[in-house]
């Protein structure tokens, strides 16, 4: 029979037959395959699967079952995933009478391959094929290598990752097969690395292993390091040296990435500090007002975000991804209005009496906290992340989460925006004029009381939009502000009062310092050390990093 379909159909079983022979599968199979040659390809494949499946009924003991499982996997046919998953879940049975295999699920008897309901009958007529964890592992492996040839590259990647994580010499042929066909460069590289991992675990000759060590060394991540250093411990001679030196190279590279990661964490913390402190840089740094309720402005911003999200959930769930964009102006207005009211109602009577201002604003902070506690309840509130703020991506060996990245960018934007307002707008000019020489500014026709009020409102409003950002990375509770206030003051004082750039440098350097201390000292002790260092620093330079010098500041 010269069936044109014959050739490809036959090619596939043949290639697997080589594997079969290596495993020492019975000769009968060969005859059966010959028989299947006369069927249509699909039918042939299915018949072959059923034949192998049937062996499960006779397999005695877990090793025998595992052999069958591997044989099923060796067919490379995706159809085996159904019965294998059922087996893993303990749903695969065989009939006591005719030893036919079936899946029993929810009282129904299903065909193992098609999953269709085959017949009616009592489930008591079936015997369960027992599984243990070892067998489940084998099933996972088999299913893993099966998906190696899935059409979706993502599926292939995850399959190859499974192999990489539990290297098995038996996967080498399968890998070789898919490697030849693989077109996606990334997937191909991962496959080669998985193969290298498997080679290291095999008893292949030395030169192959040497190549494998090189491949793994080039991969250069933590998993490769583990593989190589484990291998270096068990191997002998020059191979051990090669593995050890490859592991060392990876360690060096990883140390570099660790530094980079720490810098990133530090920048991320620093930008959080910057957001919390930058409003304070205006109220304290520019106006000289100690606003102990600054943290509560941040808290108000965070609660505004919560309220906006609640409103959106209730009325327009589709807008949820826009919730932060809506919350930003809302938070600015809410916190700014509260700040405006504070300045007009309290602070303006206390100019020139900084200690009294400190106490009065502390009182306001208690009132604001308690008000929020009464309105929203004392517990943490959940503020959702929009989709574009969730998840993470990787650069080299660094993981970067989207919310942190956005906050760093946002902090930078707020900083630049504020700098622009202060240096380039008429309002900023008036602000600086009033703070430098109030009487002169007043006689130039600037309405100083209004400049004061709006400057304070601006500082508070910025604290409010900081609250929007901070609601994305931490708990939103009435105590939110308290956790930021001391840090914020530290940043402003450290950076140098009255200097926005000082605040920027102060925030970022404190953030990075904190994150570099953490691995050695732990988070809490690291924070304590930073606090003590700042206390010492202030005593060395009472006016901070970027201090103004000269007669004006002494007055």
């Amino acid at each position: 029979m010269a069936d044109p379909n014959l050739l490809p159909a036959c090619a596939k079983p043949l290639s697997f037959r080589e594997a079969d022979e290596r495993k020492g599968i019975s000769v009968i199979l060969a005859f059966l395959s010959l028989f299947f040659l006369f069927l249509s390809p699909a039918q042939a494949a299915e018949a072959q699967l059923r034949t192998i499946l049937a062996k499960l009924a006779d397999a005695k003991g877990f090793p025998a079952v595992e052999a069958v499982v591997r044989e099923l996997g060796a067919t490379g046919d995706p159809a085996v995933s159904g019965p294998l998953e059922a087996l893993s879940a303990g749903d695969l049975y065989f009939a006591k009478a005719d030893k036919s295999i079936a899946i029993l699920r929810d009282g129904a008897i299903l065909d193992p391959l098609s999953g269709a309901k085959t017949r009616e009958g009592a489930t008591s007529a079936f015997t369960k094929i027992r599984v243990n964890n070892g067998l489940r592992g084998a099933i996972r492996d088999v299913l893993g290598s099966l998906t190696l040839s899935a059409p979706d590259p993502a599926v292939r990647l995850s399959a190859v990752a499974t192999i990489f994580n539990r290297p098995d010499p038996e996967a080498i042929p399968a890998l070789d097969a898919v490697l030849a066909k693989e077109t996606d460069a990334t997937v191909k590289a991962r496959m080669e690395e998985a193969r290298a991992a498997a080679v290291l675990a095999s008893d292949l000759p030395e030169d192959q292993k040497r190549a494998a060590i090189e491949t793994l060394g080039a991969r250069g991540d933590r998993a490769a390091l583990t593989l190589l250093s484990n291998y270096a411990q068990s191997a002998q001679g020059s191979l051990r040296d090669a593995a050890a030196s490859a592991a060392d190279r990876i360690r060096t590279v990883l140390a570099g990435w660790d530094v980079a990661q720490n810098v990133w964490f530090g920048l991320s913390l620093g930008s959080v500090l910057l957001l919390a402190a930058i409003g304070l840089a205006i109220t304290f740094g520019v106006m000289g007002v100690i606003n102990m309720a600054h943290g509560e402005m941040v808290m108000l911003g965070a609660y505004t975000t919560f309220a906006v999200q609640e409103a959106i959930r209730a009325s327009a769930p589709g807008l949820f991804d826009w919730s932060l964009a809506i919350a930003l102006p809302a938070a600015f207005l809410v916190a700014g209005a509260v700040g405006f009211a504070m300045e007009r109602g309290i602070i303006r009577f206390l100019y020139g009496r900084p200690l009294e201002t400190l106490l009065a604003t502390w009182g306001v902070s208690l009132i604001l906290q308690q008000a929020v506690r009464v309105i929203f309840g004392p517990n943490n509130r959940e503020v959702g992340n929009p989709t574009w703020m969730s998840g993470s991506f990787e650069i080299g060996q660094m993981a970067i989460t989207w919310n942190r990245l956005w906050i760093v960018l946002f902090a930078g934007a707020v900083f630049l925006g504020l700098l622009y307002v202060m240096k380039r707008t008429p309002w900023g000019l008036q602000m600086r004029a009033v703070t430098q020489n109030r009487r002169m500014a007043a006689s130039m026709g600037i309405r100083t009381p209004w400049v004061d009020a709006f400057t304070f409102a601006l500082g508070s409003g910025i604290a409010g939009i900081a609250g929007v950002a901070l609601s994305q990375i931490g708990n939103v509770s009435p105590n939110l502000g308290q956790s930021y206030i001391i840090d914020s003051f530290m940043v402003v004082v450290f950076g140098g009062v009255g200097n926005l750039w000082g605040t920027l440098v102060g925030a970022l350097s404190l953030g990075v310092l904190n994150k570099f201390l953490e691995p050695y000292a732990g988070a809490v002790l690291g924070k304590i050390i930073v606090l003590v260092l700042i206390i010492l620093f202030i005593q060395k330079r009472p006016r901070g990093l970027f201090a103004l010098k000269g007669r004006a500041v002494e007055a």
Partner: protein
Amino acid sequence: MITQRVFGAGFTPRVQLALALILLGGVLVPLSNLLLAPSNPLHVPSYALALFGKYLCYALLALSLDLVWGYVGILSLGHGAFFALGGYAMGMYLMRQIGARGVYANPELPDFMVFLNWSELPWFWLGFDRFWFACLMVLLVPGLLAFVFGWFAFRSRVTGVYLSIITQAMTYALLLAFFRNDMGFGGNNGLTDFKDILGFPVQAAGTRGALFAASALALAVGVAVCAAIVGSQYGKLMIAVRDAESRTRFLGWRPENVKLFAFTVSAVMAGIAGALYVPQVGIINPGEFAPANSIEVVVWTAVGGRGTIVGPIIGALLVNSAKSWFTGALPDFWLFALGGLFVFVTLFMPKGILGLWDQWQNRTMRKKPADDPIEPSTAPLPQPAE
């Protein structure tokens, strides 16, 4: 006025009256609790005794703050730290007195150390089984911390709000440190479950009465010491430093030393207050280091009238009584009331209750100005960024 000449200028009639009242109360209140029948209208119930004993410790703490804030102009936002350190020193003694009566019945180690699988007492716990040693530490630890902190801060001329902020950072750092289990001070839970002090059970009525009397005595001594200091030429120097620091410097005084002395004495007083507080409330935990606590002390002092010695005592008693009443009757409103108090006092009665009283007296009697004037607000205009 003869007594004033004998004891010094600080012992104004008002201070003498306060001293007499404190000492009298220190004797009569415990006696009425112990000797009078509960049915007697003059009987002080035990809960009230415990409450007022606590207030006396708060009053001493407020007085200690007054010495530095009212007279030298150092607004410490970290005085709670000295109070807590004194309290911890006493708490450590009380922990050692538990002995084998703890849950784990370890004769040497306090329960929390057994729980953390520690095998021996850390070095800094040695000696705390002796009362005299613990008392020494009550004085030394806060005093030394204040001395070292003040040495650096005053020498580098950290003043005003900067100083306030770093004192706050100091107590915050201590708060974080004492929360850590491996610091060896009981971590989150602190020190508690005390059994006895000097061999007497801490819960017994007699012990409570004695602790009350001791607190009153300590407060009286504190008042006397402050009055003596304030009445001396050094007291005048303190006020001079508060009002015009650089002037004192150009006169050849070293304001940093003036401040350091007052700060250290004040810290020791706060430590004593904490040490008397702990056996009466039965617990000391890191929460005492919370910056909010220290700021609350400031409002007691401000309400009573700073720079008056007697005012802070009145403030501490009044504000804490109000707190007890509010937390019982209107728990949700206490923080509103406290916050409002902060705002009200700074805006409308910057000299506190005693200041108002003096003003009223001056107006009715047309006397010369009060004997302890408060710092005049010399700078009516907003300062540019300092």
